[in-house]
């Protein structure tokens, strides 16, 4: 009871007009609950794909699938500067003279994808003489720390603030709070407010998921058995991947025999796939929402002594190597790490008063049998992501661990 009183007292104090760091736009942020109403109920439960995800938004899905065939504007050899269907916003009010102090609130550096991206971003910073200072704080995957980090960075005299949010819904208030203070650039995961000057992302999860599913539908004969492997539920950028794949599978003649969560753990992935092979005998295709454990899944087939079926992976070198060595039927949709270059470029454009796209949609290529050779780089570490867009940077390949 005492605590309840304390809490109530705290509220009363706050209501009495004491200083508040609460973002002014906090109240107008979108509801954090996912727009479940727009999710089409699944009529295709017989296909084994289950209910459609709460995260599915038809309009976003349609837009992303359309973007796959649109031509991006900008220099063709620098996809990280390209934008698909950009709607430019004026940034004259942010214009100021250099040199600049850029700040970055990073969600985490806890997996190879983020590791490659983070290296790429630091190298991008090194390319620009007009950046005199670059302050980066690592939230270590903790929402609460990232909220504090964003508040802390606002007092550091940053000219622009780059944010890679740890979670979409829970970081929205903090981002809203930073917007009035400093030009904000968000990339990778989004937030539920349009206050940042620009939001940078590759086309997105729907396109990623659909690329893989469509490949399997094309390569696997009707009636074929598909195993879908997901990392974990509830992360928007992963939920969209699966929901788009589900739409494609539901329309197809393929049979999804299982949808399993792997936690992104190689051993768990391998065990799950081994169990499915033992139970179903033959599996004709494996769909994955991220390729980090693709090699472990392939090994499950090798160890069981059965041919490796059609596979969906990602642009990590270990998968590409396996693909080439085993002459697999495979595709690798990508979520390019070159998107870590763009925020720095965007920040400088904004500070120079040049216009930037409100929604900066980067091209999102997929690796196919035809272009596999271009992306396979045997001199790079096995966990390196091929689409880093970093090959021409001065620190390449050493900074990324290559030889």
């Amino acid at each position: 009871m005492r605590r309840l009183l304390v809490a109530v007292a705290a509220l009363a104090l706050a209501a009495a007009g004491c200083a508040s760091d609460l973002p002014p736009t906090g109240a107008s942020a979108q509801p954090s609950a996912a727009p479940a109403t727009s999710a089409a109920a699944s009529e295709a439960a017989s296909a084994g794909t289950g209910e459609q995800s709460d995260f599915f938004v038809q309009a976003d899905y349609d837009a992303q699938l359309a973007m796959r065939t649109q031509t991006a504007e900008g220099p063709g050899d620098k996809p990280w500067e390209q934008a698909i269907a950009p709607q430019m916003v004026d940034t004259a009010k942010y214009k100021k003279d250099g040199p600049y102090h850029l700040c970055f609130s990073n969600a985490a550096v806890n997996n190879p994808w983020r590791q490659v991206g983070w290296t790429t971003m630091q190298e991008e910073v090194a390319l620009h003489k007009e950046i005199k200072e670059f302050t980066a704080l690592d939230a270590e995957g903790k929402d609460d720390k990232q909220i504090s980090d964003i508040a802390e960075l606002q007092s550091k005299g940053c000219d622009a603030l780059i944010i890679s949010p740890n979670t979409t819904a829970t970081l929205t208030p903090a981002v809203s709070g930073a917007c009035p203070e400093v030009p904000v650039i968000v990339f990778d995961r989004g937030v539920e407010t349009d206050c940042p000057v620009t939001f940078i992302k590759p086309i997105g999860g729907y396109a990623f998921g659909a690329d893989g599913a469509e490949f399997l539908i094309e390569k696997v004969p009707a009636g074929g058995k598909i195993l879908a492997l997901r990392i974990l539920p509830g992360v928007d950028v992963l939920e969209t991947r699966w929901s788009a794949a589900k739409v494609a599978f539901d329309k197809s003649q393929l049979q999804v025999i299982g949808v399993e969560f792997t936690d992104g753990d190689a051993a768990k992935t391998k065990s799950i796939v081994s169990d499915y092979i033992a139970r179903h005998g033959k599996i004709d295709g494996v769909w994955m929402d991220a390729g980090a454990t693709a090699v472990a899944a392939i090994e499950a087939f090798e160890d069981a002594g059965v041919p490796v079926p059609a596979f969906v992976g990602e642009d990590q070198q270990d998968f590409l190597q396996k693909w080439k060595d085993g002459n697999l039927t495979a595709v690798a949709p990508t979520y390019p790490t070159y998107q870590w270059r763009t925020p720095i470029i965007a920040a400088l454009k904004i500070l120079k008063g040049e216009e930037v796209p409100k929604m900066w949609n980067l091209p999102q290529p997929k690796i196919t049998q035809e272009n596999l050779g271009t992306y396979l780089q045997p001199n790079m570490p096995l966990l390196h992501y091929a689409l880093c867009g970093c090959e021409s940077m001065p620190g390449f390949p050493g900074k990324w661990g290559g030889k």
Partner: protein
Amino acid sequence: MTGRVVALVANPTRAVYAALIATLAIGWALVAFDGGTFTLNDLVGIQQRSAALGIVAIGQTLAILAGSLDLSVAYLISLVSLVAAETMAGQSSNILTAVVVALGVSALVGLVNGVVITKLKVHAFIATLGVALVIRGVLDHLYDGPAGRVPVEFQQLGYSRVGPVPVAAILWAAVAVGVWFLLRRTRFGNRVYAVGGDVEVARLSGVRTDRVVIAAHVLCSLCAGVAGLLLASRLGAGAPTVGTDGGYDLESIAAVVLGGTALAGGRGGVAGTVGGVLLLAVLDSVFNQLEVNSFFKDVVRGVVIVVAVAVYARRTGRRAS
């Protein structure tokens, strides 16, 4: 002079505050050397950062003093944040109900912990680990991601300040003072120390030891519940991973022992825990200022905790044996 240093270090509570002041000074110097400054803003940041862990650690202190410990707090925090945010559903009129429901859930979990430990005679490590797994299962089953919405009035709890002091820190201080009073000025407090010191002796001298342990666990879980509410107000929603991401289970235990409370129970107190939490927060803040790699931070933390406890162990002298 050396005698004075020894005397200083001989009392864990004093030692942890000495270490805290030293860390602040060294940190300030390092940051200054690095070209930065330690501003009021950073001090506010430290308070914000420590509040949630601080409140959990106060509760953990109670459990540990009673000779137990609680590994379920991290998942409980996540659960409470979700229960509170979903009950509030963005409506300020639901705040009171949500707080009551959230604390009710917490108390219930604490009760289960306490009863399993005392009545079923399950070791606290296993009992609270088991309860943690059960809560985890429930969380994974019911929630896919952040859910519910906290009205803007309740978000004030996590964001407002009275002058330079965040409301969250005031809440933490209130909980600390409350539990300090409970431990030092009430019969219940004496019994907690008695039970943690030697459960058999306590029982023989007429203490209903089971009740004391159960009460300690209920209070511990209530503290975790308050921390869950605070985090919900910070995030604006409930999140199924907020407790485990923060590592509040092991981190709160680490903060308690860093503050000089004996893991075996019966010795220590709230003041030390507050110092332990602040020490961890200052380290965090200094590392943040210097943009030190988070992995290096873990190494330093691990060393600090082990060294601190080794120093305290010297004080207690040779083991009874």
